[in-house]
């Protein structure tokens, strides 16, 4: 091992010591991955409700489960979506350091190039989603203003597609080399 390498960063680098003597390094990163997953699930649910509400608005009182899914008060989700996106982004940025060493290097060694490429795709899409949040929040907080209807619909659908993409790529990557690997 090279001098100066962080012992906690990866089992591949020889570090599998307990974090503060309480949990192992693997458990530490697995817990953060779990926090990332839970916040991503909340974000996915809220944004999918909103996207359905703007793409297929309900004009009659909701009857079935699909109509009720579309009939949520979508404006109320805007702040929660922004908060969840930022939490998911920050936690994902934190565990990215571990990914770069403990996941990506073995992926490349085993020629999982498409998986690695899609993860890089995911990181770029995540930043683009992040910079859309101020306008997204503003349009939803002014939902009573018809001037913003099209922009609000467009940015919500783009964000929803982006978050689904981020979630699916993250899920596939986790299956390739994630929990307990």
């Amino acid at each position: 091992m090279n001098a100066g390498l962080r012992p906690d960063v990866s089992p591949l680098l020889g570090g599998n010591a307990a974090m503060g003597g309480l949990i192992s390094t693997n458990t530490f990163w697995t817990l953060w991955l779990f926090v990332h997953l839970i916040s991503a699930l909340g974000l996915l649910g809220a944004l999918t409700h909103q996207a359905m509400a703007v793409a297929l608005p309900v004009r009659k009182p909701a009857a079935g489960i699909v109509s009720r899914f579309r009939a949520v008060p979508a404006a109320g989700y805007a702040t929660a979506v922004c908060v969840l996106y930022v939490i998911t982004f920050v936690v994902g940025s934190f565990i990215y350091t571990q990914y770069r060493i403990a996941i990506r290097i073995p992926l490349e060694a085993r020629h999982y190039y498409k998986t690695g490429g899609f993860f890089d795709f995911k990181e770029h899409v995540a930043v683009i989603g992040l910079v859309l949040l101020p306008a997204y929040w503003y349009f939803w907080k002014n939902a009573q203003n018809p001037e913003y209807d099209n922009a609000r619909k467009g940015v919500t659908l783009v964000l929803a597609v982006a978050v689904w993409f981020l979630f699916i790529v993250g899920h596939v990557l986790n299956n390739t080399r994630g929990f307990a690997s």
Partner: protein
Amino acid sequence: MSATTTESRAAQRTSSLASSRKFKAFATTFSISGPVIYCLIQYFNYPLVTYWPATGRLGWGYEGARPGAGPNMLWYGWTVTTILIASALGIVAMIIPERLTKKIPLWLVWLLPILAVPYIVYSLMYWWRLAAR
């Protein structure tokens, strides 16, 4: 309930930030310029910082490969640079007259992220070439 009452209630529900014209200029300029700036920053490779996950070192600007230091990470630097430049443009938009910022088409907020996708796919050609071997 009269239409006036409904409108006034809707207006009351809007926070001061959400009803601010200056915030609108900031938010729309930030979100429109953000995807473009990110693609440019990534293309010209101008990260504010370079992070070395194996050593925990954080260096200013771009730092290339160093023997024994492990891989470098530029994504944090690209992200921070993008946020700073987009914020600066947003602040400029708050300062300039509203008659100018009102002319910015709002559909750019959702169109530019879509247009960024082909460039992102192209920028990852390194991976796709390796995968095609």
